[in-house]
């Protein structure tokens, strides 16, 4: 069991702040356009980080698993009347976990970018299947499905703040679970497989079981994230939003935030959600109306690409390491002051 340390206390304080204080900020924009999508992206990145950062199996198909989660949640709500929302989200995670294990099977024989390429198969196949078979959309052929109204018990989840709070609670619970997971035996086995498969095997780590378990847990998280993304952020379910670019985006979140770091997923997600908003504001302020949304996309792409290369070169542990270093400097500086104080 992970010891409850200062870091956990800080996380708990942050959660209380987000849950008790932030909801009183009177801005629907803040919840609908920033915080709710950020939470969903964080959860997906957390899932990918368990697989890629901790267990070392890079996947380029995260968006496909988000789509599986979203469509499972939609279909279960549609076909099982009276299904509680939380059970529905759990089912979304479980089905995605099963699909993830299926597409994770090649990882038993492949490593590195061979596996990365094979996860593209999942990306293209899932998107194709969801578009081509009307059954997945409940017979709706328009391609865009509006999500049904959501309830937890008698309470309708129908306002920006409520959608945000529900996301927050689910993400917080799953994050706590993930912290527990990576600080225990499973986390150590993930790292062992990542760092040296043969050595891990010699130490008695069951490679096959560990890899498939990593696939399952990771896909569970990504599936729930997909359901949150579709139900609480977009409020529509459509395959088009879960394309390869979204997969890359999740991957970029964990590279920028920090591989094999829980808080990295949150830092990276905050960055990736806020960057385009800041860019379009800054662009409009500096260049006026010539800085249109097309140009924002292009500039955002270049900045993202440069940042990826920058972080891989200079700070492979991402924003998470920067935060850790600032904290460390803060601690050492205050200690130095203390010591020098006691000397004089």
């Amino acid at each position, binding site marked *: 069991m992970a010891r409850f340390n200062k870091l956990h206390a800080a996380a708990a304080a942050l959660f209380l702040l987000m849950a008790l204080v932030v909801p009183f900020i009177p801005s629907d924009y803040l919840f609908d356009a920033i915080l709710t999508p950020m939470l969903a992206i964080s959860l997906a990145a957390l899932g990918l980080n368990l697989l890629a950062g901790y267990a070392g199996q890079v996947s380029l198909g995260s968006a496909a698993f988000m789509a599986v989660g979203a469509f499972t949640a939609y279909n279960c709500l549609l076909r099982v009347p009276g299904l509680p929302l939380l059970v529905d989200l759990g089912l979304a995670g479980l089905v995605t976990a099963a699909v993830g294990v299926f597409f994770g099977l090649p990882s038993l024989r492949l490593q590195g970018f061979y596996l990365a390429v*094979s996860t593209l198969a999942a990306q293209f*196949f899932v998107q194709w299947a969801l578009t081509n078979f009307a059954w997945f959309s409940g017979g709706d052929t328009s391609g865009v499905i509006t999500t049904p109204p959501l309830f937890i018990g008698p309470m309708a989840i129908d306002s920006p703040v409520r959608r945000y709070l529900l996301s927050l609670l689910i993400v917080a619970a799953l994050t706590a679970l993930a912290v527990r997971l990576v600080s225990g035996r499973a986390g150590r086995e993930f790292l062992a497989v990542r760092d040296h498969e043969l050595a891990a095997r010699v130490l008695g780590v069951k490679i096959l079981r560990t890899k498939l378990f990593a696939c399952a847990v990771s896909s569970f998280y990504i599936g729930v994230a997909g359901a949150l993304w579709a139900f609480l952020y977009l409020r529509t379910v459509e395959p088009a939003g879960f394309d390869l670019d979204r997969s890359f985006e999740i991957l970029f979140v964990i590279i920028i935030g920090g591989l094999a770091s829980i808080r990295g997923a949150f830092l990276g997600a905050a960055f990736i959600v806020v960057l385009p908003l800041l860019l379009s504001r800054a662009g409009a302020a500096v260049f006026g109306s010539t800085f249109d949304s097309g140009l924002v996309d292009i500039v955002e792409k270049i900045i993202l690409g440069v940042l990826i290369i920058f972080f891989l070169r200079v700070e492979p542990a991402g924003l998470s390491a920067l935060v850790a270093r600032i904290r460390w400097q803060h601690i050492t500086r205050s200690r130095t002051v203390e010591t020098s104080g006691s000397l004089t």
Partner: protein
Amino acid sequence: MDWGFFAGVAIAGLLAGVMYSLVAIGFVLIYKTSSVLNFAQGAMVLFAALTFVSLHEEGLPFWVAFAVTLGAMIVLGILIEALVLRPLVNQPPITLFLATLGLSYVIEGAAQLFWGTQVHSLDLGIEDVPLPLNAILISQFDVFCAVVAGVIVAALTILFRYTRTGLAFRAAAEDQYAALNTGLRLPVIWASIWGVAGFVSLVAGLLWGARTGVQFSLSLVVLKSLPVLVLGGFDSILGAIVGGLIIGLTETLAEVYIGPYVGGGIDQWIAYVIALGFLLVRPTGLFGQRSVERV
């Protein structure tokens, strides 16, 4: 079964496969000498085609535009080698792969920022009249592409096998430390191989651009050529050709004969499934030399 129609579909598929091979060769060149799976290859194809077509539209004659673009591709290659890959030397392959993924975003963005996002048409002066061959119609343009691909493969084979430069390339591919030890300058070798890869991307960009129009989707050809590489092996030029032919053939046949039963569009993923199924049986691909699993 209509065998004449079957043969027509098969030949069209094989010729489409040649187009995939052209892009795959660029990957193989980089992978062979520096063990980097360069995801930015598609972005390089886009960049080359956009630069060429924009210069050509500005009024530069074909060969001048070609030469200028080639120069730009070589400079781009040298910059990539110096700024992105050399600092990351000795990192795990997957880190290098992710770096080239970031790189592809930068190149795609830069190409669109410089040259705009509109679609350009490109006319190489080859008329696309169907050639009749025993009642089967074959696109003349496709045949031209196949000939160009053949010439490039022959030239690269000669370069690698019979020249000192090629020997140096092979030495660097075989063992970087040993190559350094015999006095080879790896940065020079890497820069020149990026130049060659730039040339291949330019040719691929022109042919694909003439076929589909020069636009952003050109950079997506990278996704079509990845299964080709998996099938053929990342380090074999011959593999890239044979892999491309197999993928092109099966993809087209599957789309025509299986597609109608499942609602079409299976060419989006069938190549990956073929490659994946093959990989499970033989993880090094058809002609790959190195073992995938290194401990």
